[in-house]
């Protein structure tokens, strides 16, 4: 098997162990683009970008916690599996 050299934008990066960190640039760029067209007073633009970034990241963390609670506690309590 041939080992290929890494070429940016052509080959994938090896971030399998810290993929969740990529949520930060995802949220940031969404906020930059969305607030560019939704902000009325552009003097408050960067403050709104920061706020929206934190809101997206916080929202996804809360969704993750909610999903964990449902899967780890609610579902086993409602429908226990045999042997558990």
């Amino acid at each position, binding site marked *: 098997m041939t080992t290929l050299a890494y070429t940016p934008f*052509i*080959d994938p*990066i090896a971030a399998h162990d810290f993929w969740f960190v990529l949520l930060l*640039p*995802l949220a940031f*760029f*969404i906020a930059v*683009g969305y607030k560019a067209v939704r902000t009325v*007073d552009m003097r408050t633009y960067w403050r709104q970008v920061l706020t929206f970034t934190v809101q997206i990241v916080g929202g996804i963390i809360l969704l993750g916690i909610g999903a964990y609670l449902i899967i780890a506690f609610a579902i086993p309590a409602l429908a226990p599996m045999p042997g558990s």
Partner: protein
Amino acid sequence: MSTDRATLDIPAAVLAFLFPGAGQMFRGQLYRGAMASVGVLGLFLGGLLIGGIDVVDSKEDKIWFFGQAIVGPIAFGTDALHQSQFKAWAQVPAATGRPGWDKRSGYPNETRTWIEPLPQGVKFDPKERPSENGFWTWRIPNDTSDASGPPNKKSIAKMNELGTLFATLAGMLNFIIILDALLPSKRGRDLTKDASPAAGIAAATIAATAGAEVSV
């Protein structure tokens, strides 16, 4: 409701599709357009950086490409580059039930090889080759020293999922930006057209001096 709310700025919307943020720049909102561009291109290029060119694929990931296509010619160009320079024809195994030729990415032990067009007078057999013309195909070299491998690595698992998500969200975001270019007054009248403090203060001063109504 003011009459300008119903105005459609079609040239700005077309420009916004051709290049993210160009519609806003066309209307003189340079900073707004530049930031819209940074947002969309940041997501799209971020997707390519994470998952490689494999994440933009109109043939193998068609549903995702519908979303990515809204980024505009950049997405179509990336897909065309992917299809033409990184894929090659290969015979579909008969076990799949749909034997024939298909264009796909290469496996790590395969090398992209050019097959010359059929010579004059030789009959074309679709079982032997996908086209009478010259084409790229995948070959497993006999000599390992000759194996250069495919021109790109296919992304897998989380890197493919995240890269595809980044690039598709870029298209979704650009859809909002195109709508903003098409319906410029939906946001309400701008307090400032540019984010530079001087321009902002000047615009606000002019608005206040003229007694203009500023709808927020």
